[in-house]
């Protein structure tokens, strides 16, 4: 979470494309919420402005200049991996750079290479 913000030059949580929360108290462990790069991403399908473009190999690419900030993508994502950036009014989406994986001490998050199909 902090690594993702750091990548963008920010301290804090709000710009992060990853969220970590406890599964009901720390004794139950944690859930990491991050885009799983769907092959047929529902967020892209509901985007009225084609601002979210399906990416070869899975996931999406955000074209911020086209986004109108409607937030449909947030609702379409069942795993809850898209958030609105309150500052820009546009969604925060994972760019699959793998920077976070370098700072995950226990390899909960890893970067996997896939072929662009």
């Amino acid at each position, binding site marked *: 979470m902090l690594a993702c*913000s*750091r990548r963008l030059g920010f*301290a804090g*949580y709000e*710009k992060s494309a990853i969220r970590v929360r406890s599964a009901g108290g*720390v*004794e139950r462990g944690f859930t990491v919420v991050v885009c799983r790069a769907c092959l047929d991403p529902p967020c892209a399908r509901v985007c009225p402005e084609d601002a979210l473009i399906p990416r070869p190999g899975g996931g999406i690419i955000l074209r911020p200049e086209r986004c109108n900030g409607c937030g449909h993508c947030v609702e379409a994502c069942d795993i809850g991996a898209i958030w609105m950036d309150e500052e820009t009014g546009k969604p925060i989406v994972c760019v699959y750079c793998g920077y976070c994986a370098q700072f995950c*001490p226990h390899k909960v998050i890893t970067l996997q290479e896939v072929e662009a199909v």
Partner: protein
Amino acid sequence: MSDWVKTLSRVLYVDLARKRYWVEDREDLFGKWLGGIGVASQLYKEEVPRAADPLGPENTIIFAVGPLTGVFPMASKTIAVFKSPLNGYFAESHAGGRSASAIRFAGYGAIVIRGVSERPICLVIEPDRVRFRDASALWGVRSAETVGRILREITPGAGVRSILRIGGAGEKLVRYAMVMVETFRHFGRMGLGAVFGSKKLKAIVIAPGKVYRFPDMKRYRDIYQKIYDLAKGPKTKKYHDLGTAENVLVLDAIGALPTKNFSSGRFDGAGEISGEALVENVLARRVACSACPVACIHLAAIREEYEDEKFMYKTEFISYDYEPIYALGTNLGVKDRFGLLKLFKAVEDWGLDAISTGVILAWATEALERGLITKSETLVDLRWGNWRSYVAAIENIVRQPNEFYKVLAMGVEEAAKRYGGEDFAMSFNKVEPAGYLTGPLFFISLAIGFRHSHLDSGAYSLDQRIFSSGEELPSPREAVQKIIEEEAWRQVLTSLVLCLFARGVYDENLTSEALGSLGYSYSSADLRKLGREIYFEKQRLKWEEGFRASNLRIPKRITETPTPLGKISKEYFEEALKEFDNIVKKHNHVK
């Protein structure tokens, strides 16, 4: 001055009596004193009258974080400063969890909480607003853990917020009540929980939501990487593998493991409750505070069959560390692992400081043994190792069913004053000690310290070094100087604010570089100088409140039980305290 300091300089003031809050820009403080303990002690100086009653409306709770909070590895701690209800002096306590990053990213460098609410209250601190939630429905919910569970359901910020709250002990003003943070982290020592209780402050929820831009991205990321790699390496191994519980066997081997009210430095059940035995048998999960790759928090599973129904089971979790193992284990003669975990769970639920509770019960056990008190006072059969009766006694400390337990709730100093047994009432400056029977420097450090944590100055390690090198004891004056020197440097770390487990990672140069990447310019020498200044600012506050080390009671027990450095000489101890007073007096005078 760096722009970074501007983002940190916002201080949130909350008045519980009038239900008002406001923000002040205190760059004057954050510019000069960095943050954390440096700034918190200045705020205390402004806020708390020297003669204030620790449980009255004049006492003020101050939380502070620092420039490295939430942006560097292991910068995970929040500093709390308040007047301690145990001894009536300026006191300090640290806790991690998510508290520090939550405060920082809610937009504050410090939070100042004044006054007393007329009814139970829960503060919900969000970016740009504070809500005063009625907490009448939570008051009397005895378990601090349950209170957290309820608040998780009704407040914002899942995953990043911090929840601070008290249990039954804080409500009942037990002088050594703690404040629980998230789950299993605590502002444990010095009685912050009782101060919360006196203000009718049941809980504080802090939900972050701000971001700050780094002034020099490249420089920051480079130094971050360097520190991250170090923090993952051998310098923190002790904390992530066995955890601090590693100390049980280490201290037992040299005869420094406080046992049965400090009557011995060796425990015949050490092997059963050692770090090794706990990992092998009960360790169920390890977790970390925010921004920390070490994950020192060791959680044990307590698997338990219902008392009234066979084959009906539940599993609960509890954190463990060296200090509670000493306080509720070796010092009470408890070697039953299950019983030990149940004792941890009892202090956790009721919201008591594990160390003080254990030391007080050890005194009560010995007092009962010697006939100073009888079972009509203790109500339960306090006997070494009898953990069930200790669990019952812990409940009694909170519920206070008779005069005896009302007195126990005030600490061991008060209990011994009332019932006798001062020779074996273990306290230094009226606070029950952490668990290192290593030699004189450790206890001197506790007597003159602020947190009564072994980490104040790490003097147990000075003792151990003298022991392993076979050197002579330093003169009392040199001993005090060594303690002050180490503690002064730690003021820098706790102003940034780093966890003191990071002290091996952040040396002077790295600390200076880390600050440099955020636009601060401090040389190593500047930092050292600042550390000394902060240290003596704090000592001056205590001095003005009337603290004189040479007036302290030294429990006779500590001069009778051999340590690895032999028996501690009373004269040596007294001489050191006198020297300490001279040093502080001179320093106050010069300034």
